[in-house]
C-alpha cells in the first residue's frame, strides 16, 4: 500500500477505447458491409439468372457446332456458332486495328509528347472519344462508311465502330501504365548508350506490359458485348456468313435481340443461351488476360 503512495497519481498511459469511438466503428462497419452486399447481390443474381436459364441450352453439343439456319422460330434445337464466329471475328478485326493505334498514341503521349501542343490536343480528343456513346460511334460509321463511301452494311462496319470505342480505352491504359514506369529505368538505359526508341521497346514497354495486356483484354471483353453498332451496321442472319465485308452476319448480342421478339419457349432458350455464351466468352478473355498478365509480370524473387 505504501508503494502506491510514493508515486504521484498519474493518469494511465493507455486508455480503453471510448464508447463513442466504438459506436462509430460499429456504424461504419455496418455501412461498409451493407454497401458491399448491395453491390454483390445484384451481381450474383444476374449470374444466377443467366446460369439458370442458360446452362441447359449451352450444354447441348449442337449449340456450339450448329447455326439457327432452317429452324422455325418455335422449333427447339440449333446453335449459335454463326454468332460466336461473328462476335469473335468482329472483335479480332477491331483488335487488329485498335491495339497498334492505341499503343502508339499512348507511347507518343508519354514518351514523346513532352507537354507539346499536339500532346494536349490529343489528350483532349481521347477524353472526348472516351465519352462517345456506342450508338453515336455506330451512326458516325454509318454516315461515313455506308452513306458517303457507299459500302454495304457488314460485320466490318461493326468492327470499325468498335475501333472508335476501343482506341481511347487502350490509349488511356497504355498511358497510365507507361507513366508509372520509373524514370530511373529510362535514364539507366540511356546511360548505357541505348537509343531512346530501343529504350522504349526493350525496357519501358516490357516493364509496363502486364498492365497494358490486362487493359487490352478488358477493353476487348467490353467491346464484345456492344449492341448498338450491331443494330445499326449489320443485319442479323440466322445462318453462318464467313464474309466480314458483305451480307448479314450474326453476333451474340444480335441473337439475344432477335430472339427476345420470339415468344416461344425455343426463343427464350436461345436468348438465355446466347447470354450465357457471351458471359462465358468474356470470362474466358478475362482469364486469358490474367494468365498473360501473370506471365509478363515483374518478378521480384
Amino acid at each position: 500500500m505504501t508503494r502506491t503512495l510514493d508515486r504521484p497519481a498519474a493518469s494511465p498511459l493507455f486508455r480503453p477505447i471510448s464508447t463513442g469511438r466504438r459506436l462509430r466503428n460499429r456504424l461504419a462497419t455496418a455501412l461498409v458491409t451493407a454497401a458491399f452486399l448491395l453491390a454483390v447481390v445484384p451481381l450474383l443474381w444476374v449470374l444466377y439468372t443467366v446460369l439458370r436459364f442458360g446452362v441447359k441450352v449451352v450444354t447441348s453439343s449442337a449449340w456450339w457446332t450448329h447455326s439457327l439456319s432452317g429452324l422455325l422460330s418455335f422449333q427447339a434445337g440449333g446453335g449459335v456458332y454463326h454468332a460466336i464466329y461473328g462476335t469473335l471475328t468482329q472483335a479480332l478485326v477491331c483488335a487488329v486495328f485498335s491495339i497498334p493505334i492505341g499503343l502508339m498514341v499512348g507511347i507518343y503521349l508519354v514518351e514523346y509528347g513532352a507537354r507539346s501542343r499536339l500532346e494536349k490536343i490529343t489528350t483532349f480528343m481521347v477524353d472526348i472519344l472516351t465519352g462517345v456513346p456506342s450508338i453515336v460511334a455506330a451512326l458516325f460509321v454509318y454516315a461515313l462508311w455506308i452513306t458517303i463511301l457507299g459500302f454495304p452494311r457488314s460485320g466490318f462496319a461493326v468492327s470499325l465502330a468498335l475501333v472508335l470505342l476501343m482506341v481511347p480505352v487502350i490509349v488511356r491504359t497504355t498511358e497510365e501504365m507507361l507513366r508509372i514506369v520509373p524514370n530511373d529505368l529510362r535514364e539507366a538505359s540511356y546511360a548505357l548508350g541505348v537509343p531512346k526508341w530501343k529504350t522504349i521497346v526493350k525496357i519501358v514497354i516490357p516493364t509496363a506490359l502486364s498492365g497494358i495486356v490486362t487493359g487490352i483484354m478488358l477493353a476487348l471483353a467490353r467491346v464484345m458485348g456492344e449492341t448498338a453498332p450491331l443494330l445499326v451496321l449489320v443485319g442479323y442472319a440466322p445462318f453462318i456468313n464467313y464474309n466480314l465485308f458483305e451480307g448479314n452476319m450474326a453476333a451474340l448480342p444480335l441473337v439475344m435481340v432477335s430472339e427476345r421478339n420470339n415468344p416461344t419457349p425455343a426463343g427464350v432458350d436461345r436468348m438465355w443461351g446466347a447470354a450465357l455464351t457471351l458471359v462465358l466468352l468474356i470470362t474466358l478473355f478475362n482469364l486469358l488476360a490474367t494468365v498473360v498478365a501473370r506471365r509478363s509480370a515483374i518478378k521480384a524473387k
Partner: protein
Amino acid sequence: MARRLDLEHVNIYYGNFHAVSDVSLMVPPHSVTAFIGPSGCGKSTVLRTINRMHEVIPGARVEGRVLLDGEDVYGPGVDPVDVRRTIGMVFQRPNPFPTMSIRDNVVAGLKLQGVKNKAKLNETAEQALRAANLWDEVRDRLNKPGGGLSGGQQQRLCIARAVAVAPDVLLMDEPCSALDPISTLAIEDLISELKRDFTIVIVTHNMQQAARVSDQTAFFNLRATGEPGQLVEIDQTQKIFANPTQRATEDYITGRFG
C-alpha cells in the same frame, strides 16, 4: 581505355534557372576525382553534363565545352548515344531492370546495342560481375530476377552493368549513399581496382570516402540559395584535406559550415 576529361567554362541551366556557373576542371586518365559539396550545389548536375544525360530533362541546356581526349562531346554532329556509350554512369539509387534476370541486366547494354553472340555475352557477364565483386554471390542464380538482390548487391549489379559496356570514363553519383559500411567498403575497393581501366568521377557526401578513394577532390559550393553553384577549388585530395587554399573548403571539410 581510360581517357582524359576536361571541362572548360561549363554553365548549366534548367530552363531559366542557372544551376551551375563557369566550371573548369581537368580529370587525368586512370584517376579518381571526387566531387564534394553541400546539397543542391550542382554536383549531380555537373556529372550528368559530362555524359550528356543532362539534356534528357526538358528545357535543360549546357554552355561551354566538355572534352574527352580533346574532342568536344557537345560538338556538332556528335551523337549523345555514342557519348553515353563512352562515358558510363552509376546512379545514386540502384536501378536494375525489373524485367530482366541478373545476367541479362549485366549485359543489357551490349544486348541492346545489338551484340548477339551468346558465348561472348556470358563471358562479359562473368567478367563484369567479377569486376564488381558480385560474381561469387550470384554465380548460381544468374537467371533469377535482378530485383531480388539486396540493395548493396543491386548497386554492385548496376556497377557491373555500367562496366560491361566497357566505357572509357565511369561517372558515379553517390554510389554508396544507400549502402551499409561493408558494401560501401566493397565498392570503394572496387573503385580502386576499376581505376586501372577507367577514368572515374565520383560524387560523395562522405568526406572519409573522398579521402580514401580519390586522387583529386573538387569542392563545389553555393554562394547563396538561388545563386548558381560553382567550383570553389580542385586539387590533390591530400592537399584539399590537409590545407585547402579556400576558407570555404576548410569550413566545409571540418564541419564548420555557414
